[in-house]
């Protein structure tokens, strides 16, 4: 049975024909156990930890030891401390075939604290009943990471060692801890950790000599099989899982003709491309490099890994470095002397530069908002969605909405708003879906108030600043339609909640007379009925609201603008509409000033652009031009351009429709600061270094994402380069780099040149108008 020789998941089932390969670690662990010393094996996944444990236990039993293997995943994570410890002791007692009923004993002694009870059980029961030396293997100790109460467990294990001096019987009892974690993950307090009293056992990849028996499973004569195994190990570096997997693939489906190329093909088939997603080991490594990196260190992990992957210069291992420890635990890197290297060519190829880049791009997207917010949203989403799915609406929902609401008020952010609306949508769906409003009525009274308050708090700033009260109205309308607001009581609730929400906004005295009228007009325009109950609520709200116009503009408007920019699908369009309204003249300048003070240069920049385009505006041109040449605005353009590259690349890689792509590309060139700076930089009073550096960045990106080539004009770039000149050594260096990129790019063909040219033409005309206006 060729297939059963290899083990590609779980423990080697040796008695069923599985092949077990002996490594130095076997002898090392066995020797430690024989001397009843404490040991731990903390290594990446699928290096053969559990197989090592079983093998050692077998050997120990043959030598007269009693071995106990506790697999903590089997104990489970959904229980309290009492049950968990009871389960663990029962497993120990069962395997040692004790006469004492562990569960009963554990319950009887319930008055004793956990650590003491645990140690007493071993001292008074286990060692009393068993006369042989005992080795207890605790497998999958990383399971304890998700439990809050296992410090006692490790403390007890430490005690067994420390107390040997007082109680010589304890010399018969030793522990081996096995798992995927760093000692620091498991217990932080050095006085309680058992890891500094135990010996560390390292599991390494198979050496060619150790791996030699694997050849037996390949359907080849011995000599050729060894040769083929050499090719296999060339890819896997002797990694236990990867080697066995590749062997089993080749044994199950042998190539017609064995050659190094045939093995390469099998590697290709098994691990690369789409297969990558299906391999458990590669998935594990991927998750450890991304999702499961230590909180707050995601970017560091990738950055460090990238440096190791590049390999120049080599990176020395630092034992205390959290990122290094984590990377070693992923298994993707290992030690070569004192240096960290990528473990094997398969990892090197799968987790390559392009892969890292991709990850980094992804994390960049999240990173544009503060990490805390992103994290919070994730958490919230999980909580609320889970709560709603499970049907535990009453408590969870109201609490979470409360949190969402508060956070929203405190930290207005597009993410939160979007999140909030989706939560609200789900909430409403749930209510209408179940038709169980009555059942929830108790919580509805409570949460509807909050819900409405939150909606209004969200909608109101927008409605005030942008004159679109529809959001508010829509929210209320939905609430009424879904029966959440059914009667007067509810609207009282809403009013009260609104006032409360305004407290949160720290409102100041002085009323906005325009709001009521505004809302009324908007509503009448939209629904044609001046006497709708919704209107009453809005009007009441407006009267009760104590917001001064000044307050709104100074506090609410910036937030609203920020929200609009971050959430609206096409903020440009929205702003355009805004400027055709009557507020155009006085609001535009205000918006520009506020946005600028908030470093929201995107808004201020776009505001200017629309002012330029709008022939009706009465804002003086010199004002616009003076604002447009502010260094902050110019700097913004550099940043926004980077953003556009990402958007374009993202859009193209997602294979959106051609029209969407065209849209992105067009906007890309419209706001390309490189273009602005290279052509008009001097005119606007900034030095050429901006432009040159930008140009270099453009080219680097173009170089990297080949797809952008289609939209670039090399001649244009070349002339830009000439125009910018190179006065300093530093600039000369940049210019040289640009030249290099150019040389490379010149070898490409440009099928879509005409399209590009028309974009540039558009852009030029725009800039010229802009300048003429001055």
């Amino acid at each position, binding site marked *: 049975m060729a297939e059963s020789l290899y083990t590609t998941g*779980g423990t080697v089932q040796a008695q069923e024909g599985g092949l077990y390969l002996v490594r130095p670690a076997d002898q090392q662990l066995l020797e430690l156990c024989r001397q009843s010393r404490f040991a731990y094996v903390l290594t990446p996944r699928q290096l053969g930890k559990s197989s090592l444990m*079983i093998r050692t236990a077998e050997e120990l039993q043959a030598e007269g030891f009693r*071995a106990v293997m506790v697999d903590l995943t089997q104990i489970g994570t959904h229980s309290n401390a009492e049950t968990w410890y009871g389960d663990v002791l029962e497993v120990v007692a069962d395997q040692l075939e004790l006469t004492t009923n562990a*569960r009963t004993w554990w319950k009887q002694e319930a008055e004793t604290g956990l650590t003491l009870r645990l140690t007493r059980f071993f001292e008074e029961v286990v060692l009393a009943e068993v006369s042989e030396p005992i080795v207890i293997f605790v497998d999958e100790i990383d399971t304890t990471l998700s439990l809050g109460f296992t410090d006692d467990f490790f403390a007890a294990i430490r005690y067994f060692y420390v107390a040997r001096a007082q109680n010589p019987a304890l010399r018969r009892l030793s522990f081996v801890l096995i798992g995927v974690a760093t000692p620091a993950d498991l217990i932080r307090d050095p006085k309680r950790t058992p890891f500094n009293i135990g010996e560390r056992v390292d599991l390494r990849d198979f050496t060619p000599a150790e791996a030699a028996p694997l050849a037996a499973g390949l359907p080849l004569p011995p000599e050729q099989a060894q040769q083929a195994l050499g090719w296999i190990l060339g890819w896997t570096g002797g990694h236990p899982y990867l080697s066995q997997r590749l062997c089993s693939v080749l044994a199950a489906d042998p190539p017609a003709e064995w050659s190094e190329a045939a093995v390469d093909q099998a590697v290709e088939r098994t691990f690369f491309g789409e297969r990558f997603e299906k391999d458990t080991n590669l998935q594990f490594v991927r998750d450890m490099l991304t999702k499961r990196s230590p909180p707050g260190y995601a970017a560091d992990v990738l950055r460090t890994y990238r440096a190791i992957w590049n390999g120049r210069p080599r990176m020395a291992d630092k034992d205390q470095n959290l990122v290094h420890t984590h990377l070693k635990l992923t298994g993707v890197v290992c030690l070569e002397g004192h240096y960290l290297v990528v473990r094997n060519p398969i990892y090197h190829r799968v987790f390559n530069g392009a892969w890292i880049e991709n990850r980094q791009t992804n994390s960049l997207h999240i990173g544009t908002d503060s990490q805390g917010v992103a994290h919070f949203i994730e958490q919230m989403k999980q909580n609320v969605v889970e709560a709603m799915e499970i049907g535990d609406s009453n408590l969870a929902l109201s609490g979470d909405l409360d949190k969402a609401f508060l956070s929203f008020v405190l930290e207005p952010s597009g993410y939160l708003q979007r999140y909030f609306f989706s939560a609200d949508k789900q909430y409403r769906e749930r209510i209408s879906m179940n038709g169980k409003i009555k059942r929830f009525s108790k919580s509805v009274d409570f949460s509807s108030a909050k819900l409405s308050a939150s909606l209004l708090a969200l909608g109101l700033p927008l409605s005030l600043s942008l004159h679109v009260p529809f959001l508010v109205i829509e929210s209320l309308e939905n609430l009424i339609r879904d029966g959440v607001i059914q009667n007067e009581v509810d609207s009282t609730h809403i009013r009260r909640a609104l006032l409360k929400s305004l407290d949160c906004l720290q409102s100041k005295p002085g009323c906005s007379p325009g709001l009521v009228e505004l809302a009324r007009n908007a509503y009448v325009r939209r629904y044609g009925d001046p006497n709708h109950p919704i209107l009453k609520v809005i009007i009441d709200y407006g009267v009760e609201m104590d917001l001064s116009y000044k307050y709104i503009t100074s506090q609410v408007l910036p937030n609203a603008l920020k929200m609009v920019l971050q959430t609206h699908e096409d903020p440009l369009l929205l702003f355009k509409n805004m400027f055709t309204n009557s507020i155009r003249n006085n609001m535009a300048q205000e918006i520009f000033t506020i946005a600028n003070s908030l470093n929201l240069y995107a808004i201020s920049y776009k505001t200017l652009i629309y002012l330029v385009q709008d022939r009706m505006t009465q804002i003086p041109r010199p004002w616009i031009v003076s604002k447009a040449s502010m260094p902050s605005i110019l700097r913004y353009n550099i940043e926004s351009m980077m953003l556009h590259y990402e958007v374009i690349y993202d859009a193209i890689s997602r294979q959106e429709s051609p029209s969407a792509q065209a849209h992105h590309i067009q906007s890309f060139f419209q706001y390309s600061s490189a273009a602005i700076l290279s052509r008009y930089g001097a005119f606007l009073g900034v030095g050429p270094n901006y432009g040159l550096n930008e140009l270099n960045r453009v080219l680097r990106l173009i170089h990297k994402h080949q797809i952008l080539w289609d939209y670039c004009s090399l001649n244009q770039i070349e002339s830009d380069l000439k125009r910018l000149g190179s006065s300093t050594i530093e600039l000369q260096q940049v210019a040289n780099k640009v030249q290099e990129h150019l040389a490379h790019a010149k070898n490409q063909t440009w099928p879509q040149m005409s399209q590009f040219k028309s974009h540039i033409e558009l852009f030029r005309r725009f800039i010229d108008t802009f300048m003429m206006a001055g």
Partner: protein
Amino acid sequence: MKIFISYKRGVSPDEPLALELHQQLSDAHAVFIDHAMAVGTPWAERIDRELRQADVLLLLLSAASVGSEMVVGEVETAHRLQKHQGRPRILPVRVAYRELLPYPLSAYLNPINWALWDTPADTPRLLEELERAMAGEELDNAAAELGPAAPASIPAPATTPPLQQIQPPSPQASVAPLEPAEGTMDAESRFYIEREGDGVVRRALVRQGVTITIKGPRQMGKSSLLMRVIQRAQAAGREAVYLDLQQFDQEVLAEAGRFYIQFCQAIAEQLGLPDGTAEAWAAGGGNNQLATRYVQNQVLKPLNRPLLLAMDEVDRLFEAKYRSDFFAMLRGWHNNRASPVPLFRPWKQLDLALVTATEPYHLIANLNQSPFNVGEVIPLDDFSVEQVAELNQRHGAPLAPGPLAQLMALLHGHPYLVRRALYLVAGGQMPVERVLEQANSDYGPFGDHLRYHLFRIVDNKALRAGLRQVIRSNRCDDEKTIRLLIAAGLARQEAGAVLPRCPLYASYFGEHLDG
């Protein structure tokens, strides 16, 4: 009283009887029958609504209707509604039909009394019986009369005689009786196309103590393969326990305590072992530990024979909070086999076979505690071009290469639909031109199947929106929706894009989900 009549359209005597009942009952009751719905009525919503409001589901069971997915869908929905709102009550009427019900209808209907109708002469008596039943009495024919009442037992195919040598396909295959495409296939059906997974199963089961995971979306042939696993195990002298998690109530699944106990009870019950869960759980402890000890001490030890534990639709546990623990426990059972501790010896006798429509990494995040990546993992996909050609051969090659290619293009090798098409054409029920031409019609060759799927997602806004997006732009923004669409067999992923499972779905759902 509001009555909903469920029957198979276009079939005699089902349809005439249904119309007759409709007419007779309408005097005293509000009766809904899916017959004369105007074109363009959003019928799936309508049926859903009517079923919710109905007091009684009058269910006509015949040889034709028990194979109808739509009928199964209506029964499932009625069963679920009953749990939540106490109605509709299901009144099964067997229309000249006395066979054992196929699974899963058997699971829902076996415990229920039923009425019998053989000829039009029986109609007046049937009406009387129904009126009595609606007044609160039981129907005349006792539940136990046909088929056992066990809620989660091995479905019919596994009870057929021991495995015989499967004949290689031969020219004579064309004279073999045709088989309709519905449901789980008999283990020795000659229309069963062996795929890579069959070989894996055959080789794996030679050993003892194996773990097999079969994964793939709905109607991919997972349960059929599982049946073959069971049959092979039985032929090799092992005991087999079949647990379909679909048959565990939502309430039970939501509560770890109840689920673990019922899980152990079901195993013991099928093996004819006494139920010792009460004492076991009274001692206290975590569920994983209790269940593990129970299976070890009260199942494997007394049984003292090799045992295959086959679990269908394990993704039903997706919503359960404790699912990671449960699956980690199964993984632990797998690991126990290798343990040298004498206590664990019984575990060497246990084989596990798990069937899931959801990608396992959704079920348990930590791959290393997952039972789905140890042992043999068998992904099932749509039929390839070669397999469809092979199936065509076995049906006596009713399709020429041209139409066969057209069919393949339309169905993307969807195993059930391909078999359905071949069954219709080979049986002379419909020429292939009409199959292709009416493929996406409500009452065409695949109408029942398409209607059923539409019916299943009609009250789920997110799924509808998701599927629309998939059809329109080949992507879907919501991870959860993607997972559900794929598990339901409505979509598939290819090179990063999310596509409708087959062009037929794109055209049917594209049309019916708009607006």
